[in-house]
């Protein structure tokens, strides 16, 4: 059964139930199901699980993941979906943005979350949102002001006072055009020490890729540090999500794409 059909069936049942509300038969309303059930359901339906194996965790602790795409194709949207997946598992996410203010990052989350809510036809999104919000922390830095010692200092500020213990870190806006190996090595140490799973958005350029060389050099130079990588490739009006590296064996049969309207990751072929 496709993930889409289940909520539709339940919704139909719900609307029939609403007509029968008084007396007769007691209906289990979709909205009455507990939040944890709801979270589990969304996590189970997330197409990302196809890459992550049974447990759905793509990265090991201390591991690095990358989302590669050209500007404007949907890197941040995918990062935010990875974050939402973690948030729904009650995993703390630290979102580091080097080029967008906090308010803009918040908007990304609200937007993607609303699309998820619509997609799964959720009614009590307010409660769900309130439940996941404490697990998210956004930090923004000026690109030139970002360094690993500075980040460590900020994380220590949070953990020492018991404010926030990050488990998954997203880094959006870091330029891979310059030499980043040293910074990534430093970050790797921090990630291993704190058992963090770190995802990076990697911006690539049209001229750096070709049919013969689908993955650009700026990433290939540091690819050994990464456990997983997803590349977003526009194909006509569609954007395909191609796993180019996964922790286990790469399953060639997986087909994921970004829905052009909502930028949500879906499995199958576009238009199916």
């Amino acid at each position, binding site marked *: 059964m496709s993930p889409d059909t289940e909520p539709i069936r339940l919704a139909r049942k719900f609307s029939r139930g609403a007509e029968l*509300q*008084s*007396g007769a038969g007691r209906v289990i*309303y979709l909205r*009455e199901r507990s939040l944890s059930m709801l979270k589990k359901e969304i996590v189970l339906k997330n197409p990302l699980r196809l890459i992550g194996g049974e447990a759905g965790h793509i990265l090991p602790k201390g591991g690095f993941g990358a989302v590669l795409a050209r500007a404007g194709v949907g890197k941040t949207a995918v990062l935010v979906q990875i974050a939402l997946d973690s948030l729904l598992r009650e995993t703390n996410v630290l*979102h580091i943005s080097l080029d967008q*203010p*906090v*308010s803009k*990052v*918040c908007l990304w989350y609200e937007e993607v979350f609303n699309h998820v809510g619509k997609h799964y036809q959720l*009614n*009590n999104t*307010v*409660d769900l949102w*309130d439940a996941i*919000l*404490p697990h*998210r*922390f*956004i*930090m*923004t*830095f*000026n690109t030139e*002001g970002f360094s690993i010692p500075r980040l460590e200092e*900020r994380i220590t*500020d*949070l953990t*020492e*006072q*018991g*404010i*926030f213990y990050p488990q998954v870190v997203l880094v959006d806006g870091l330029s891979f055009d310059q030499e980043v190996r040293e910074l990534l090595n430093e970050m790797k140490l921090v990630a291993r020490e704190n058992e963090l799973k770190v995802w990076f958005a990697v911006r690539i350029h049209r001229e750096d890729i070709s049919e013969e060389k689908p993955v650009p050099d700026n990433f290939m130079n540091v690819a050994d540090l990464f456990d997983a990588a997803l590349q977003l490739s526009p194909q006509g009006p569609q954007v395909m999500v191609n796993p180019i590296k996964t922790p286990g064996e790469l399953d060639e049969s997986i087909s994921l794409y970004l829905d052009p309207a909502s930028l949500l990751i879906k499995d199958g072929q576009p238009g199916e």
Partner: protein
Amino acid sequence: MKPDIHKTRNIGISAHIDAGKTTLTERILFYCQRIHSIHDVKGKDGVGATMDFMELEKERGITIASAATYCTWKNHEINIIDTPGHVDFTIEVERSLRVLDGGILVLCSVGGVQSQSITVDRQMARYKVPAVAFINKCDRSGADPFRVIRQLREKLSHNAIAVQIPIGLEANFNGVVDLVTMKALYFDGDSGEKIREEEIPADLMDMVEERREELIDAASMYSDDLMEQALEGEVTPEVLMEAIRLGTLERGITPVFMGSAYKNKGVQPLLDGVTKYLPNPADVANTAVDLENNEEPVDLVTDSSKPLTALAFKLEDGRYGQLTYIRVYQGSISKGDTIVNARTGKKVKVGRVARMHADQMEDLDKLAAGTIGALFGVDCASGDTFCSPDVTYSLTSMHVPEPVISLAIVPEDNKAQINMSKALNRFTKEDPTFRTKVDPETSETIISGMGELHLEVYVERMRREYGAAVTTGNPQVAYRETITQMSEFNYTHKKQTGGSGQYGRVAGYVEPVQGEDFVFESKIVGGAIPTQYIPAVEKGFQSCMEKGALLGFPITGVKIVINDGQSHSVDSSEMAFAAAARGAFREVYNKCKPAILEPIMKVEVETPPEFQGAVMGLLNQRRGIILGTQEQDTLCFVEAEVPLAEMFGYSTVLRSSTQGKAQFTMEFASYRKAPQSVADDLIEKAAKEKKDKAKVA
């Protein structure tokens, strides 16, 4: 001077607190020769700035009420509304923006775009007010106007384009280069009143060329003539100015001026900019609704010969009696005219018409279309529309936020009691976000508003302006109650004792609803409840929403559906069905698992990075969810959502833990379910208070 609508400007000056609005206004009035000497905010001469005429404002160095004033600059008549910079007084800013045609957004060249600038900008966008920006304090250490321009683009999405560049910065700030006329401007004389025009210093030429090109690029989008001239390589100032004006009117360009009001530099070119780029009343489209024609929108024309439509946007009780600030959109108001208050339908005869200059006034015979002035002795509320007796137009109502905090006040003696009533009567008319009521249980007077400071200022004004000394209780947060699950009801109200009987049965279900306070739906078929009683059932349920059983706060987010019932041919009545509805709700409420909602404030703290940890710790202690931290140059911003109940006394604690270097702003964000432990405490406290009161009684 003969009024010429094309030479009138109604502008507001808005910005973050301490960005220097009042100082700028003071300088504008000085250069327009409305005042003959300059007094600074918190000045050593003890006189205070002219616009801050309330005693309290002078003392606190903040502008509380928006004082309206007018001045003339190069044959143009400028009406200025000075607006407060603190979020607690946002209604003042909103009201000003409603009646203005253009705005000056004042920004500090060191602090840049701060949280209040963002709030003010959102408000400007709501009323589509075109604006020019003035980057003030260019003489301050750390000044960087171009960083502020970047922030205007990034944070506020303005297409901010410099029309000037500074000559020197910080202590070396000497003047500005006008990129339109390509002249360097210096400000000489004791108060910068003499403008010296010179050639552009050679070392600035590269930057000037680069910035001018940017300006022409942006402005050419709005003018084909400019585009042509730019391609030919010869741009005339007149064509460039007109293109900038068109871009500004569309809110497509925000021209950026620079200067230092305190050091008397850059103010006159800003005034030129106001007259050149900001709209005159005829440039702005205004609409009203026709109350007699199904509230159909009516376009207003800035023409004094048309029927009058004017908005009372501010009331004041001053030394001249009640003063009503009014903006005339269409038609005119003359002494002796009879005008109608569209809300009440009452006719009013206009006694005196005046034009205000802070706390001084000038009598006028007539207020023409598009101008701002004041009327005396007119009884009305803020936000009322006045029109000619032959039309019933109403200007769309202003957006008024709900108050989030309350305070009990008790007059200290009998005299204070009388004065307090007078004061409260005045304040509620002046400020729609300030509310007052008497608690029927405690007989205490409760005042409500938008924040601690908002209420504090009114209590202080009561004492100073009305001689009403009052004791205040602890601030009370405006909680709400809601339900969390659906439940069914089936209730019969039956009374047979003495007189005519009462009978009504209502059945259905109650369920939570998002985004609405109260929804009522009738699915009654076959006349189980006769149609004429259904409104009474709705009324009965609605009356229960006023006070929840948990804490006694209003209930929101409730949908009631009735689908069955029963009536009696003799004993049923509206009263019986309303009572049945009340009984049904009382019975079902606890089954719906009621919960307490608390107001959550969006708090933004601005701090040097070394105190970031401490600031986050403080917010965390107050049950705050930190949304994020943002590092920007030498400052760090922490954004959080914190329950209002936890924010009392925060400013003092923040000051002491950051050596006074951090500041914060907060505004209402939403209502959110209070955690169970907090809700339990509140319920326990409310029950105890109820018990204590019963004992006293």
